[in-house]
């Protein structure tokens, strides 16, 4: 057995309601011996060799943050892109300041173009949004560069603009552009199905072996930067199972990776191959088990389309412009897959963004409970964009959980009020106050890169509900600080079925801590997102953010 290390701190918030505060914690072999004070720890220290490490004497410790839903492979594609965004993005390699206005946008783009050494390297930027950055045009991008491919990727990933050099790079002739109903050749605008044409041409570049691994290394850095010690990859695999697993192992399964990854398989419809074949495929994934990456008895299913893309399925009165959301699989197939995995005892996570998608998930959960009741099943609604108070009440009675992307409120409440679903529903998206009042365990997630991988940012949105405009959207749905911090620690652990191991600081758990430079309980709650993260302790080892 190794020596005990005692970390002292200005304050330790254990997130263990039985003993919420401490100022020292003893750690041995990656686990917590106990939390308390140097005095209360004395019986251990009298008997066992130990050191007292006072590195955190001026810091505040919380349990290691947990993000129970993000997508490292997706983020690996995105992070190598150049960010020009309306919102601030704090990334380990620098903070991206908000850019507002058409001139400022193009000036920023020109600056990036000039900073690139290799004159043929495509410049792909992400974060453009017409509301903030004005109309975009092929000619404007030609003025940025006549020779370098320049591609402007819209914030929600559903459109791009390309300059002439990019069209040549993608090997797309004018005729193809002219005849496509969702490509505007004049402006270089590709959207919806037109974007698929461009994506197919860009894929070899974006998914290039080296670029993808570099992207994953950035993901690793960003996750550490946010103060996480556990994340869940909430849909394995997104692209190609073998290649993805290999890259994840290469980059993340290393001794110097300061977090573990809970891998949640994406269930695929086996069709004529039969449900047993899909159950067997998912069961076999558990054998993959690598040090930092592990599979458990959790699976991921989907109901409706993306929230940023406005493809969520919405109950009446629907969208202002009358468009429709989409189903990611037929409701009957969703039900059949959920039943198969429910009956095998799996914990099911369901991507639901609109309130009709949620309705389907709740209705299926009610059927499954009727057919084969389960207690502690942890059926979890993921994302949780739109909901009604009545749905939340039913969900509570059926034993469902919620893992929410609360960042929606900050970024979309204003825009969706004005352009999508109106004020009442837009300002009450991510209705988390009601969730907590109904006693539903709640986690917050980033769905990175849909939102920044920064748990304190999400806790800040959940406690303040301040939108991009500065208005407060739905003050009744704000959480208390305590509730918000539970949602990024102990209750996030509960959603992942790991609450016995992580999520609070108590005797016997993994020694995972997030080290903060200030105490969230002393700072004004409006400043929560600005509390600097010193770094983390992962299984007893300190990892400073450099």
């Amino acid at each position, binding site marked *: 057995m190794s020596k005990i290390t005692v970390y002292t701190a200005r304050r330790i918030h254990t997130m263990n309601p039985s003993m919420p505060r401490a100022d020292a914690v003893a750690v041995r072999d990656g686990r917590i011996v106990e939390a308390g004070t140097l005095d209360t720890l004395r019986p251990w220290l009298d008997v066992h060799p130990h050191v007292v490490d006072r590195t955190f004497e001026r810091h505040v410790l919380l349990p290691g943050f947990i993000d129970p839903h993000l997508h490292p492979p997706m983020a690996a594609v995105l992070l190598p892109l150049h960010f020009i965004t309306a919102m601030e993005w704090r990334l380990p390699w620098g903070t991206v300041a908000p850019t507002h206005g058409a001139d400022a946008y193009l000036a920023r783009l020109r600056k990036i173009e000039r900073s690139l050494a290799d004159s043929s390297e495509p410049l792909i930027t992400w974060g453009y949004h017409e509301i903030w950055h004005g109309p975009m045009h092929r000619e404007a991008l030609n003025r940025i560069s006549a020779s370098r491919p320049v591609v402007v990727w819209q914030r929600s990933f559903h459109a791009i603009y390309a300059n002439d050099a990019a069209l040549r790079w993608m090997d*797309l002739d004018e*005729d*193809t552009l002219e*005849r*496509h*109903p*969702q*490509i505007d050749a004049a402006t270089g605008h590709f959207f*919806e*199905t*037109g974007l*698929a*044409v461009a*994506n*197919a041409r860009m894929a070899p570049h974006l998914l290039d072996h080296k670029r993808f691994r570099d992207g994953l290394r950035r993901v690793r850095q960003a996750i550490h930067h946010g103060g996480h010690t556990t994340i869940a990859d909430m849909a394995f695999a997104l692209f190609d199972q073998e290649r993805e697993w290999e890259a994840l192992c290469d980059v993340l399964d290393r001794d110097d990776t300061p977090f573990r990854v809970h891998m949640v398989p994406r269930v695929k419809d086996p*069709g*004529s*191959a039969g449900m047993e074949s899909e159950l067997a495929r998912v069961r076999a994934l558990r054998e993959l088990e690598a040090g930092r990456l592990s599979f458990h008895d959790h699976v991921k299913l989907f109901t409706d389309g993306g929230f940023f893309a406005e493809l969520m*399925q919405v109950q009446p009165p629907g969208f202002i412009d009358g468009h*429709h959301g*989409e*189903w*990611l*699989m*037929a*409701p*009957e*197939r969703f039900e059949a897959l959920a039943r198969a995995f429910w009956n095998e005892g799996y914990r099911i996570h369901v991507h639901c963004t609109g309130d*009709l998608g949620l*309705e*389907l998930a709740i209705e299926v959960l009610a059927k499954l409970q009727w057919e084969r009741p389960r207690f502690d099943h942890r059926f979890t609604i993921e994302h949780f964009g739109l909901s009604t108070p009545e749905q939340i009440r039913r969900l509570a009675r059926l034993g469902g959980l919620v893992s929410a992307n609360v960042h929606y409120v900050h970024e979309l409440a204003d825009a969706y009020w004005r352009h999508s679903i109106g004020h009442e529903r837009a300002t009450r998206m991510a209705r988390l106050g009601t969730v907590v009042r109904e006693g539903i365990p709640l986690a917050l997630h980033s769905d990175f890169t849909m939102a920044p991988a920064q748990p304190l940012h999400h806790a800040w949105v959940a406690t303040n509900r301040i939108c991009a405009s500065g208005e407060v959207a739905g003050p009744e749905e704000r959480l208390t600080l305590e509730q918000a911090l539970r949602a990024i620690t102990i209750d996030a652990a509960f959603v992942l079925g790991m609450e016995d191991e992580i999520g609070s600081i108590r005797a016997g758990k993994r020694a995972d801590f997030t080290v903060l430079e200030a105490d969230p309980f002393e700072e004004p709650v409006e400043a929560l997102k600005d509390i600097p993260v010193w770094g983390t302790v992962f299984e007893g080892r300190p990892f400073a953010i450099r």
Partner: protein
Amino acid sequence: MNMSATGRIPVTLIGGYLGAGKTSLLNHLLTHAGGERIAVLVNDFGALGLDAALVARRDANTVTLTNGCVCCSIADDFGTALDTQIRADEPPERIVVETSGVAEPAKAARYAGGWPGVRLDAVLTVVDLETIRSRGKDRFVGDLVVRQIEAADLIVANKSDRVDASTRRSAARWLTRRAPRSTQIETSHGRVAPAVVLGVDLHGSGGLHEGFGNGRIRSHSPNVPVSPASEPSNRMEPESHAATDRNAHPPFVRVSCRAGEPLERAALVTALDAIPGTVMRFKGVVRLREDPDRPRILQGVGRRWSLEPAPLHLPAALGIGGDSAIDLIGVGPAGPIERAARRIAPVP
């Protein structure tokens, strides 16, 4: 001759909700392809239940049939599946795509219509006559099912053997109310003649220059004078044939017409817009008075049609010289279809 002048492979979309019968329609199509090299892209080829005797080769994503057709899995990526076909050593003459049961057909049409190397031929939506009315009211998928019907060029009203006459009539009325301009064909077990699913093959047997008589096609005497196909005339001369493909698909009618004089564009447009709902497909080469030296390809499915420049060598290849020649494929009595043919170029 299925490629248009642009060399793009035509793509036919088969849509419709889960359980409507898309798979059996595709199975029937592959089994009765009649010499055309068709690539069928499906979500799940295990579900097709292809006759083992028809399978020449099989690998993880592709089944090659003895009749020259292939059947491929779309997996997760429609675009990649299309590219695989377009870039094949021997690209197919036609691509038929089974869209997912929850696909918005209008969106799938934009996808396939704009994809480099292909062009959209038609959208067929298969509906299950037995369940369509309850599906149309379903709170989760009712709107979607209605949009699938609205987006169809042709509605295949399937499983007619499972419903009684009054259910069939009320379902047909319901379909017409939801999609008043739609063209419907009723069948069971997904049996629809390839000529209806894919349209007329101008070069193939039974095409414009060969007259009729393929298989057990039955000629029936049109009540208009018939002149030999090779002899130009100033009139459109409809000929019609009711065809029954061995106890397989329901009979269809094929009407062929020719005109020796160029057609007036305005009159042609009026005639095409008034085409009856029993005409599923029409295709041909026409010459317009405004520009008689430039042959054009006319293609129609249901009530949607297009006119685009034809390769200059096409009329010679088809043996129709300077004539306009059009084939119509329809169901039900021949009379209305023949009258439509006559309106396309009225007897002077």
